[in-house]
């Protein structure tokens, strides 16, 4: 079972207390943007086999959104962090590198 720690309230709980929200750090495109960009924002996903950055909501706790770095093969969670960022913070990157030296980095 997947266990996550909410960075907003500090509670550590099982996945049933949270709701998954899909890929994090998507670049948003709105009205007036080219169709291809809008498509990539709306539908196309990295869907990696390995390190994945994603959104979660602490639905049955503080109710806040946060982000997590997780391995999609082993479900290992490298860390969780606040949602108010456009890319993963340095300590999360370091934690992933320590566990997955072959990881190519956030792109």
């Amino acid at each position, binding site marked *: *079972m*997947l266990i996550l720690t909410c960075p907003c309230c500090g509670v550590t709980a*099982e*996945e*049933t207390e949270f*709701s*998954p929200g*899909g*890929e994090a750090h998507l670049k948003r495109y709105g009205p007036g943007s080219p*169709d*291809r960009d*809008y*498509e*990539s924002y*709306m*539908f*196309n*996903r*990295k*869907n*990696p*086999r390995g390190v*994945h950055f*994603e959104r979660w909501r602490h639905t049955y706790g503080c109710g806040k959104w946060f982000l997590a770095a997780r391995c*999609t*093969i*082993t*479900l290992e969670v490298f860390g969780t962090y606040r949602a108010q960022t456009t890319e993963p913070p340095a300590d999360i990157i370091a934690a992933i590198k320590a566990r997955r030296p072959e990881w190519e980095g956030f792109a």
Partner: protein
Amino acid sequence: MKRYSAFAIAREALRQHKGWSHAWASPEPGSSYDVVIVGAGGHGLATAYYLGRNFGITNVAVIDKGWLGGGNTGRNTTIIRSNYLQDPSAALYEKSRALFETLSQDLNYNVMFSPRGVMMLAQTEHEKRGYLRTERANALQRVQTRFIQPAEVKKLVPIINLDGPRYPVLGALWQARGGTARHDAVAWGFARACSDMGMHVIEQCAVTGVEAAGGQVTAVNTTKGTISCKKLGIVVAGHSGALADMAGFRLPVESVALQALVSEPVKPCMDVVVMANTVHGYMSQSDKGEMVIGGGADGFNNYTQRGSWHHIEETVRALVETFPMISRLKMLRQWGGIVDMTGDRSPIISKTPLGNCFINCGWGTGGFKATPGSGWAMAELIAKGEPGPLAAEFSMTRFREGRFIDESVAAGVAH
């Protein structure tokens, strides 16, 4: 290939069964083929089969990183139906269901197709309304389905409890010509027929890269060396994203784990397939007597092939209310498979940004039923380079163009 028949069994019985040969050859990969199909599951093998049968293209290799039919083909709950809502889906799934009816004869291999009937329970007013709409749509599509009342549900499935406090049965969408088939046999039968046409089915051969020149695919790199090809078909279900990455494009697909479980064998108690989509559960009884139970999908991206405990709890809790007799059944096995979900819950059979590279993916939680139809449509796409009438609407560009084939009711969760 020796044909299987009653006569062959009698002949071999007299020879102490020494005359049987391998059902398919296991050659080493050659250096080049007209078409390379990545993925030796049901869909990949069916694609190769119809390439040979319908278009006479037999210089084909089907390669797989694991063993034949070891992915979702060996992990599903074997349900076959075609009661979808939208016209393109109904055409594709109905074609597939129709092909299943004569598949054993076509392949000379018993796929144990059992058109025992598929029932989709309506357990909320919303669901009932949705199925009544599907019934009308199916009538226009010439797919035979019927909305039946609770009394008829009880007659068809005597073990059902109609009056559950949380999940009462308000009726059901009934497709009498749906059913099940033996999932492994479908893959084996196609592999045998492909091998007989001279195609190479190569197991334990993982793709590590896709080579291209001038925007056209030229070869695939594998753990057994580089194999050049004129055309490439990617039919790898849950791992489509990884293959697309190698070919240099992204897909509107996310992979999640879907799980199923099977009970100890019991005496025959249910001779139809029952699906309860509201509660994310569905059940049928195998020929061995096991109750085959399908559950919900995880909500987050994952490639674990194992599933989650709380989903089992949710599925079983709901099914126990609907089928009280299963409350004391012991479960034998539980497993998970990786399914590739698209935004509109419909598959992709499409050209890709890379020339002569074609992809067949996004079947999500319900690919088994489509195995022959998917292969039929994909073979036409590969052979002609352009999609035929079955595949035309399932292009990967439909998301950009806003032409969704919304099947969230028919395909959202349960299959």
